[in-house]
């Protein structure tokens, strides 16, 4: 049977390298072809998992713990599908975007290809050291993409991001070193059965280091300082990729570590602490988003806030009954998918608005409702998911999380989610209200190419439809 797993990693590596040899600014068509292939491969893999359960692929034929294994289960399949699904419309969007901003185009396509290769490799890897290498590949690609526009702001943001991400992966690698020292292997399959409740304290310290490193890379409050300048200052397609996908990769790793590898030693206290930090992110991020005067910074702070919801998953799934934990797990993963789709659409819509009006302040988008109805509609649809209104995917995710919170008696998270929902409605409506005002007289609207509007509308619609079709995603999640 044809195995799509290695090809999901090789395909972006190949087209990215070919795009590099092709020349600066080239590679868009390679990207389109590659992504269509990758989406097909991800769908094939999902089908194989639903039919046959967890899939393992021993690279080199050696098998863990001597060699490196690739593993795919329901969660990997969901993340892989999310990555390719979000990236494909963004490729079309980016092609159109860079015809206007050609000076940022230098080597954008190879960098994006390596970023996608890193993400696919991360989701498939079953070896903690190999995961470190993929994390570095991902981090360097993301930093390179942030810096691609130039200018003191983005370069500073890229430098901060780079230092933060290196600190995070450094902490992670120390954890890996400790695990190898204690157990003699870096393979997840070999390590998981060895970690039981009576492990040496060093293993708990390694777990803490690895989790802290990933929290820094996921920009969890209070480690979020690097995210708004980086996501707000990058070109719109880059911001979309970063907010929708890159930070989900390190969150995926936290899920793996918490629920698979270190499951016997996770404590309820640590879970509540993670939830508290998540709550802080939701409230602080939303408040700061409200105070922003620039469009992309508002959306970037919205990312900080929405990431907080993801961390509410941990107190709701640790130390509670199995049904509550399952409900929380489903809600958290659904939030990952919904936010990925919606945030990509939101950043892309905002990028289109900025391109059309030539200004990036919120005050500058007056009149967009009349001139760019499609783009504003995309923004509004994405906003529906961010706010958590039915029938969107965001609503379904929050519904599951709320249900888990009520069923386990942790009502304080309910308060957080409700307040967070109200605050996100406030900042989404802040933008919408401004867009419906009549345009200023001196306002000058450039016509937008179709590719700048339609692909991202699809993404926003997908995030909406996710609420209705979420059962499919959840059944894939539970398939293995």
């Amino acid at each position, binding site marked *: 049977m044809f195995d799509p797993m290695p090809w999901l990693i090789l395909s972006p590596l190949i087209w990215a390298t070919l795009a590099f040899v092709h020349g600066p600014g080239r590679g868009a068509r390679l990207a389109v072809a590659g992504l269509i292939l990758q989406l097909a491969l991800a769908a094939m893999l999902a089908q194989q998992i639903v039919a046959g359960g967890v899939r393992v692929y021993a690279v080199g034929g050696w098998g863990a713990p001597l060699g490196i294994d690739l593993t795919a289960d329901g969660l990997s399949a969901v993340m892989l599908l999310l990555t390719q699904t979000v990236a494909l419309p963004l490729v079309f969007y980016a092609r159109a975007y860079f015809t206007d901003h050609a000076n940022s185009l230098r080597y954008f396509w190879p960098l994006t290809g390596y970023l996608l290769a890193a993400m696919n490799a991360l989701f498939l890897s079953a070896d903690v050291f190999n995961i470190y290498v993929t994390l570095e590949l991902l981090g360097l690609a993301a930093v390179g993409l942030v810096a691609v526009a130039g200018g003191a702001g983005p370069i500073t943001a890229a430098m901060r991001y780079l230092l933060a991400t*290196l600190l995070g992966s450094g902490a992670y690698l120390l954890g890996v070193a400790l695990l190898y020292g204690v157990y003699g292997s870096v393979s997840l399959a070999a390590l998981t059965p060895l970690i039981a409740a009576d492990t040496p304290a060093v293993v708990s310290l390694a777990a803490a280091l690895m989790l802290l490193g990933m929290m820094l890379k996921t920009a969890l409050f209070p480690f979020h*300082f690097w995210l708004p300048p980086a996501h707000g200052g990058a070109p719109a397609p880059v911001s979309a990729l970063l907010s929708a996908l890159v930070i989900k990769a390190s969150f995926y790793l936290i899920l793996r570590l918490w629920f698979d590898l270190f499951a016997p030693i996770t404590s309820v206290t640590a879970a509540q602490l993670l939830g508290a930090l998540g709550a802080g992110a939701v409230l602080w991020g939303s408040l700061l988003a409200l105070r922003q005067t620039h469009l992309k910074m508002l959306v970037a702070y919205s990312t900080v806030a929405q990431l907080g919801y993801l961390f509410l998953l941990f107190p709701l799934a640790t130390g509670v009954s199995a049904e509550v934990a399952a409900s929380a797990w489903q809600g958290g993963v659904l939030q990952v998918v919904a936010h990925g789709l919606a945030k990509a659409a939101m950043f892309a819509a905002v990028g289109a608005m900025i391109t059309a009006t030539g200004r990036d302040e919120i005050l500058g988008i007056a009149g967009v409702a009349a001139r760019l109805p499609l783009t504003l509609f995309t923004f509004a649809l994405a906003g529906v998911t961010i706010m958590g209104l039915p029938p969107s995917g965001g609503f379904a995710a929050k519904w599951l999380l709320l249900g888990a919170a009520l069923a386990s008696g942790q009502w304080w998270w309910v308060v957080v989610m409700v307040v967070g929902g109200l605050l996100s409605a406030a900042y989404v409506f802040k933008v919408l209200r401004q867009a419906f005002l009549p345009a200023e007289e001196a306002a000058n609207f450039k016509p937008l190419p179709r590719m700048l509007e339609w692909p991202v509308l699809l993404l926003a619609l997908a995030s909406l439809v996710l609420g209705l079709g979420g059962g499919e995603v959840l059944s894939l999640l539970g398939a293995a």
Partner: protein
Amino acid sequence: MSTALVYALTGTALFVLGVAGLILQPHLLRKILAFNIMGSGIFLVLVGLAQRAGTPDPVPQAMVLTGIVVAIAATALALALARQLLDMCGEMRLPEEKTGKDRLDV
């Protein structure tokens, strides 16, 4: 205490020194150097812990080789960015946040 364990303990000390330097030092070149010290510390821990019984182990040695290469790549990118900042802002430090829109973030 075997020799390898001494390496591991030294690695621990280097790691914390590197982390502290990375966070606290304002000058970018020193931050990058601190990152390299942190990396070297991690590699020492990896090799030292694995070989604490005295038998050589090629797997962590190969992993350290990979880690060194990755650290070189990261250092190169960091230096290029620092150099850009130097050209643009005149000094090798991260510019402080401007007043105004960015003022209130943490």
